[in-house]
């Protein structure tokens, strides 16, 4: 069953926190897969989103609406665009599910688990340093050794629960959460 044929389209715009989190989840997928950026473009074409994102630059520009970015774009995203990005994210998470599972499983030996988390967190930190505004509190929280570990786990957990056939609705609802 294709992932993009289940839930109806949304009419709600993502709030600021939702845009931040969506981009961080996409960044986490990139940290897990070295070709994640290319995979996103490929997924977008495969899922029929070429009218929304005709090329990689357009896809990149949509991701730059994240207020935490070093070079951020002020315009908001249309619900159709955010839905398409969430569907791409869910498809990536589904493809990466064995890796996500490997990070979340307590059945793995602790040394192996620790090695995997260190690798993921160092890749994520590199990507965050390259692309995000390091003066923002949310970015500093991600790079902090203690809170960063907790945030990374929440990101991986969200990707795992957002993968699969029902993941899109769950993930979209979470990105539409009210501001605390």
């Amino acid at each position: 069953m294709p992932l993009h044929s289940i839930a109806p389209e949304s009419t709600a715009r993502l709030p600021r926190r939702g845009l931040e989190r969506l981009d961080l989840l996409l960044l986490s997928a990139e940290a897990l897969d070295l070709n994640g950026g290319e995979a996103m473009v490929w997924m977008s074409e495969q899922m029929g989103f070429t009218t929304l994102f005709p090329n990689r630059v357009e896809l990149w520009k949509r991701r730059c609406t994240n207020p935490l970015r070093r070079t951020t774009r002020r315009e908001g995203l249309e619900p159709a665009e955010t839905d398409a990005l969430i569907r791409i994210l869910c498809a990536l998470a589904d493809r990466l599910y064995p890796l996500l599972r490997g990070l979340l499983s307590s059945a793995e030996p602790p040394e192996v688990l620790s090695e995997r988390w260190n690798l993921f967190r160092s890749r994520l930190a590199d990507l965050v340093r390259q692309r995000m505004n390091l003066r923002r509190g949310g970015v500093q929280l991600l790079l902090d050794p203690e809170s960063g570990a907790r945030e990374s786990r929440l990101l991986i957990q969200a990707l795992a629960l957002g993968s699969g056939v029902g993941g899109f609705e769950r993930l979209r609802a979470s990105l539409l959460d009210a501001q605390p």
Partner: protein
Amino acid sequence: MKQVLQFDQLSCRLKVEGLPDVSVGQSGQNLGIITGWSLAWAGRPELEGRKEHLLALMQVVLPYARYLISGVPRRFGAEPEPVEIGPGPEGGHGLLLRSSQPDTLPLQLNLDDAELADLVRVLDQLRLDSRLQLPLELPEPMPLKGRELLERRPLAQRLAAPLAGLLAVAVASGLGLLIPEPKPGLEPTQPPAAAQAK
């Protein structure tokens, strides 16, 4: 005519058995009546039950996953519900299954994050399978309200700012009380220049 739907993940396998409901014109491929189900876990006892138990499992596990994805681990399915799930005391997720048989103790399973994700995936596969022609009363995933999101911050952290504010007000009031009041009988002394002009 008996149909079996099977969904596999690394740690669990869900099998749902049933029949097409021919009274509403369902064909042989569909499943409109659930006669039984089983959930096999690697290294754990197999769970079995009737349709009501499967629905109860879905009604607590899927909303729990919905809250968890927002970083809010909340308990679902309080007694007398047959299934309960909540954050475990030592991490993980505690799944409690209460038997409808008398004198049978509830079964407690502690799932790690990966096992929970596997369980959510098989339940999603089942509820969205086009062969399952059965209305399932499951809540739609909805955005959480601000108040619900506050739960993800510990109580001490949430109370810190208002308590610090109250303390600051109390200290400021205490210091204000220490300043002596002017005595009512004394007139203010006049400056010497004003006295000469008189």
